[in-house]
Structure formats: C-alpha cells, structure tokens
C-alpha cells in the first residue's frame, strides 16, 4: 500500500519579515486576506488536501517568523521538508537580496541529502501594490537569479488579490512530489517484543 509518508507533503515558506508569507498561506488554504500586518511567532502550519494526478495528498504548509527574534527555538521543523518556498516582496529590494541568505540557511539547517536538486520555488509577492508602480525588482532580474540557482520555478503573486497563488502552489505540490523522501531506513537490531524494559528511565518526576 502507499506509504502514509508519501501522502503528506511538507512545505516550508521562508522570507523576510513582511513579505506576505502568512498571507500567501492564508489565501491558499482559507481564501482569506487581511491587509493588517501581524507578525508570526515561531513556526506554524496549516494543512490542505490537494488532488494531484488523481491522487489525494495532504500539504502541510509551514509558515515561519521572518523576524529572527521570534524564532527562539531554532529551525528543527525544517527536517523532512519536501519543498521550500522562498518569498520576497517585489517592492522591497532587500527582501529579494536576502533570498540567497534564506536559501543557504535552509540548505545548511535542513541538510537535504541532495542539496543541488532540492526543490525550491520562488514567489515574488505583492505585485498588486500601487498598480505595480512601486516595484523595484524586475521579473527579469528575479528570473535570472532563479536560473542561476538551478532553474528554480518562479511565480509573481498577489496574496491580496489571489493572483497566481493557486498556480504557484500547484507547482509547489508537483515539485514536492518529485523530491525523493529521505526515509531514514530504520531496522531494529533486535525484535523487542515486550517493547518496554529500557534501562534508562528518567529520574525525577514520573510523568
């Protein structure tokens, strides 16, 4: 039977503070958008059932804090990710320049077995702002960067208007599926029928 592992796809969204990570996720999962800025604390996921090529999957989408001071416990949740989404704001140059940092940070911390081919997707968000008049990162520039990093798929999105969000996540799903799961092949050395009986009991409280 199909392993449960393959039915669950884990996606991590990274990017600077305020680029719209939470909004993109909310737009995709709940079809809701709020103009208010609310910082994210720690990491947090929403799930969505998706159908892809006649099969049902559960997307587990992890939204993260863009502000470092709200990421006090570290990034253990990167582990086992199937796809990493890098988001920047097309109206803020710095957020684009930081994509490299986010990508490298992810590769170091998540240490996927084949970093060269680990699936990323880049989203240039907030294309709706000011009718596009305030944008400072051109589509060409963004695509050039994506091409230089091993042809990362690129989407221009507006979480506010829902523009391209569906298409982007479809691509994210597709790429997450392509990622070979890193099953930590585990074989018990002995078949421990009783299960319990481990010598190491924690001292102190018995809870």
């Amino acid at each position, binding site marked *: *039977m199909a392993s449960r592992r393959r039915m669950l796809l884990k996606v991590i969204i990274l990017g600077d503070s305020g680029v719209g990570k939470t909004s993109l996720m909310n737009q995709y999962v709940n079809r809701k958008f709020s103009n208010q*800025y*609310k910082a994210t*604390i*720690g990491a947090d996921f*929403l799930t969505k059932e998706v159908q892809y090529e006649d099969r049902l999957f559960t997307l587990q989408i992890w939204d993260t804090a863009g502000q470092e001071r709200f990421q006090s416990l570290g990034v253990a949740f990167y*582990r086992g990710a199937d796809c990493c989404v890098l988001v920047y704001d097309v109206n803020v140059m710095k957020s684009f320049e930081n994509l490299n940092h986010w990508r490298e940070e992810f590769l170091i911390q998540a240490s996927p077995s084949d970093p060269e081919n680990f699936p990323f997707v880049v989203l240039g968000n907030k294309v709706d702002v000011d009718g596009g008049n305030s944008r400072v990162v051109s589509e060409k520039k963004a695509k050039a960067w994506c091409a230089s990093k091993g042809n990362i798929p690129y989407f221009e999105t507006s979480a506010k208007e829902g523009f391209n969000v569906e298409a982007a996540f479809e691509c994210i799903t597709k790429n997450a599926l392509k990622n070979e799961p890193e099953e930590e092949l585990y074989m018990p050395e002995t078949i421990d029928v009783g299960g*319990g009986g481990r010598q190491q009991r924690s001292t102190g*409280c018995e*809870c």
Partner: protein
Amino acid sequence: MMLDGTEDEEKFLAAGIAGLQQNSFYMHRALDSNNLRDALKYSAQMLSELRTSKLSPHKYYELYMRAFDQLRKLEMFFEEETRRGCSIIDLYELVQHAGNILPRLYLLCTVGSVYIKSKEAPAKDVLKDLVEMCRGIQNPVRGLFLRSYLSQVSKDKLPDIGSEYEGDADTVSDAVEFVLQNFTEMNKLWVRMQHQGPSREKEKREKERSELRDLVGKNLHVLSQIEGVDLDMYKDVVLPRVLEQVVNCKDELAQFYLMDCIIQVFPDEYHLQTLDVLLGAYPQLQPSVDIKTVLSQLMERLSNYAASSAEVLPEFLQVEAFSKLSNAIGKPDMATAGVVTLYSSLLTFTLHVHPDRLDYADQVLGACVKNLSGKGKIEDKKATKQIVALLSAPLEKYNDIMTALKLSNYPHVMEFLDIPTNKVMATVIIQSIMKNATRISTSDKVEALFELIKGLIKDSDATPNDELDEDDFKEEQNSVARLIQMLYNEDPEEMFKIIETVRKHILTGGPKRLPFTVPPLMFSSLKLVRQLQGQGQEENPFGDDSATSPKKIFQLLNQTIETLSGVLAPELALQLCLQCAEAANDCELEPVAYEFFTQAYILYEEEISDSRAQVTAIHLIIGTLQRMHVFGVENRDTLTHKATGYSAKLLKKPDQCRAVYACSHLFWVDDHDNMKDGERVLLCLKRALRIANAAQQMANAARGSTGSVMLFIEILNKYLYFFEKGNPQVTVAAIQGLIELIMNEMQSDTATPDPSADAFLATTMRYIQFQKQKGGTVGEKYEPIKV
C-alpha cells in the same frame, strides 16, 4: 564541564531519537496492518522519549519535532479508523489507558483533533477538556511543549467566525477563552521555571527560558489570527486578560518579550484604539524591564503605519496618539541612550502623523532637551548616534534645513553632542542643503545656520586643536566653502547682510580655516559687485551711506584679505587682492583698484620670499595689470615701473628674462591707443635679450658648453608678436638679426642638442613661412624676412 555537558546532551538526544525510531517503526507496522492496539502501545512508548529531563530546549525541540511528524501519521490513521466505523468517543477513551501521563496527553490531543473534526461533540467541549487535562504536566519544559502541541493541532479547529466548527452562540469567545487559558497556563509554567533547580544554574536556566519564549508567544499569534477577535473583543477581553497576565507574572523576561509580542502580532488599528490601556501597563512592569526598546518598537510600528497611507492619519488624530505617547515617554528615568532612542522614535512618529505640526516636533525636541539637561556633553557612543538620528529625522522628512531651523529646540539638542559628533551632524546638515539645493536667503537664517554648524566653523574652547586627520579637515572645510557659495539673495541689501554675517562667523575660524573659507566669501561678494554694476549702478542719489555699494563691499573685502596675510597665507592674499583690483577696475573705481594693487605689492615685497612663489606672483601681477584700464597715466606708470623692477630682480636669470619680456605687454594694450608705447616695448625686449645673453654666458662658464637657446627663441616670438601688431620700433632687421643669432648658437660645435628647442624653432620658422604665403598686407609685411 560545559563541553562535557553538550557532549552528554548529544548522547542523550541520539538515544532519544533511537528509541523514538524504534517505536515508530513498530507503530508503522501496526498502522499498516490496522492494528489499533499495537499502534497505541508503540506510539505511547515512542512518546515516552519526550519524558526526558536531560535535554536543553533546543534539543528537546528536535526530539519533539520527530515525534510530532510521527503523530501526524497516527492522526491520519485515527481518521481512517473512524471512517471504518470505530467510534471516536471510544478512541478518546481508549487512548487514556496509556500508562504514563505525558504520552497519554499527547495521544489525547491527537485523538481530540480528530474528535473535533468529526463534529460528534462541540469543539468547545473537547477543547476545554484538553486544556484542563494538560494541567497534569507541571514540568515546565514538557508542559510547554505539550501545550504548544495542543495549540498547534487545535489551531485550525477553533470555533471561529465562519469556521466549520462555529457553534450556535458566542462561540468566538469559547475559542478565545481556550487560547487565553492555554496561554495563561504556559506563561505560569514558563515563569515558574526560573525558580526550579539550583541557583548556581540560574544563568543557564534564563538562557533556556529565553529559548522557550516563542512557545508562549505563539498563543498571542493564534489569538491575532482568530477572525472573530474584532476590535471590541480585543479591547474588552483579549488585551486586558493578556496584560493582566503579563503584569501579574512580575517577571522581567516574560514582560519584555510579551509586550513586544503584543505590539507585533496585533494590528496597528487595535493598538491605536487601545493606546491608553497599552501605555497604562508600562508603569506597572518590573523596574528592570527595558521599556524604552518596547516603547520605541511600538512607535516605530505606528510610524510605519502612518507612513503607509494618508487615509489612516485621521485615526491617529482621533485618538490623540501624539500626546498619549509623549506623556508615556516623559516619565521613565533611564540611561541616556534610551532616552534619546525614545525621543527619536517619537519624533519619527510625529513627523509621519503630523507633518504640518512643527510645534509638535519642537515639543518632542524640547522634552528631550529637558530630559538631557544637566548631563553635559554626551559621550556615550550609542547615545550620540541616536541624537544624530533624532536630528536627521526632520531633515529627511522635509528635505529642507529651513524647516529644521524653525524648530527652536533643534540647536539645543545639538549642544549635547560631543565635538566629533557635532561635526558629523553639521556635515549632515550641509549635505542636506547641497542635496536639496536649499535656498538660504536671509541673514537671519544664515545666522541661525552658522550657529548650528559652528562645530565646523571654529575650534571649540574645550578641545584645543585635537588630533584631526588632515584629509577629513580639508573635506569638512571644503563643504563649508561650498555652503558659502550657496547662500544667495537677489536683493543686494540682504545679500550684503548675508555676506557680513558669514564674514563675522568665518573670521572666528582661525588660521587653518581661513584659507578655505575666505575665497568663497570673496567670490560671493564679487558676484554681488558685478550684480550692482549690472544694475547700472545708480549712484545713490541721496548720498545715503547705508546703501550697499561696490565701494562698501570692497572695503569689507580689503579688511578680510588683511586677515589672510596675518595667517601666513600671503600668496592667497595676493591673488585675492588682484581679483579685487580687477573687479574694482570693472567698476571704474581707480582709487580702490590702486589700493588693492598697493596691498598686493606690499605682500609681494614683505611676505613672499620663496623664489618660485615670487615667479608665480609676478606673472599674476603682470597679467592683471595688463588688463587694467582704469588707471591714469601717473598711477599706471608707478605700478608698471614697480612690476618691471620686481621682474628684473628675480633670483634666476631665466626667470628674470621671462618676466621682463612679459612686462613688454604692459606698454602695449591692444584696444587702447593711448597705451601703446613701442619704444618701451622694445626696451623691455632688449633688456630681456641682455639677460638671456648673460644667462647663456653663465651657463657656458659653468658647464663649458652652450646653454639652451630656448630663451632666445621665446624672445623671437615676442618680436614677431609686436612686429605683427604694428609696433614701428620692431624692425625686420632686428628680427633677422635675432634669427641669425639663434642659428649660430644652434650650429656651434659646443651646442648641446636640445630637441624641444629644435622643435620650437622649426615651428616658429614655419609660422613665418606661413605668414609670408598668406599674401595681402600680412604677407607683404613678412616678405622681407629671410628664413
């Protein structure tokens, strides 16, 4: 010790992971064969690994995440089970048979999530049950992680507005109640943690607590994401309850962090509408809490909001945000850097929200001055940096120093800066003026401006000439010079006042600055002179002495230049004298021009002793004098006589020769027929020839070979010039003689080859040839010269 600690920790983590993997392996087998009993057994054993007390929060989080991933699969299995007909209520009972409480509660939360989804019981009941049950874990780390698990799995199942779990009545408050309760419990666990364990590990514990903070803060994020939490609910329930918890926990770390969280996770509109409540909480926090950081984060957020759109400004006005914030700041007595940071934030805020209320901005600065008063010059690097930020804010906002000059407290704040920083700020101000091409057009404004940037204008009394980098100093003074050039008013009266004001200030600058600052002032003044002259120079009909006249300006300049010679810059002073003389010449002011020339001559005689400087000066004098037309015969004779005298007395023969033949031009001015004295021209040229001869002989004597013929060729060119100009004294014969002389010199056996002389002569000859071929009068004139 520490190293062993971390090594041990790695070992414990590895052991934990191994145990977790082993049990999840069996759990998976059970899941694959739909064996519920075994699935529960192995999942409980797997979760037992989370009972460890040996891991730091970071490592524990790693273990927790692995368990978390496994629990997602278990959750999917539970869902399948219910679809296969297993009662969710039975499942909810069944998992409670797990032997240990921690695994039991994790399983309970996991099933609870499925339970809510099944809608067989109201979400609020299940949630209430779960949040109560979690009280069973009182160990802080384990409790915090368990509760954050609960928060995580329940997040998308809260009975929020529009959610499918929304019940009949008042359900949003159930959701809020649930999260608040979980938050309160977590905060208690978190705060209590500091009192557990030996006191010598306090530092380590504080670090661990800090790592755990996001688990607590996350609840606030969850609250902010609940759609049903509208402004009313936030104001009436959420904020008061959260603040109550924050204030009552009396814990520095928690208070600082949670205040920051409140500010960051809830929307700006909410903050504006609850400013009283929020600001009211600050005084109740522990004295050690770093209020200024939190407050400035609030103000930064609000200023960004204000800057985002003009439409939100009425909100700010309506709640009187400015006065509330400025009152809140007034109180705390804290470190200087903190005070300034706060005022800087408040000022940024004010500038965004009330761009038209300069009085507010001034109030902020005034309050800052009051708070800093008595502290003297501030030398704390962080604080001075903040003051620069504070003072730069109005410049950036208005792009106009004039606006800043209207802020009466602006200079007072600047007073607090130490000398280097004061200079930095002054430079920032000048740069702003340059960048925006700000017009500063009244003497009052100039006065205020120079008062502001006085750090660059004069040495302060406190530090007698500190070690300053030469290049930095030059750059600094150059920027002052550029600034002086930019001060302008088209009204001559006002412009003259500006010049007087600038002069007053720069004269205090001392010997090092004057050479930089006097020239621009001079040229500004001469510009005014030209302007007056352009206006037809209506000589004031009433003889009104107070009116600005070129005479008056020249008088001022004369005095200014005198200060330069006093500071050992005689060459510069001489140049400026000549500039003024020429300007006076253009104004037909003979006595003034004569005065400047006399001054230049005195400088030459008394102050300029270096021979190279003399050469440069004499050529400047000759050049200027040649252009002067204002002098009567007598004056001109005197000045010319002196100039030729100086020329002949230069130290080196070649220099003498060149200066003397240059003097020939003093007797031949093209456009003035009364200034054409062919005889004296010839006298100069002959004298130059004699000197060249002497130079030649000296060179021969010294080196035993013929010296350069360069000087002769140069003189030949002068002959040709005057010949062409029609000076009757310059004859073909004389030219012919000179050419032969040169040829002989060059062909003599002892001549040293000199390619540049050869080339010069060849060009000169070609020129004569060319003029011959031109035909017409010129050709005729040249005809008799044989080449």
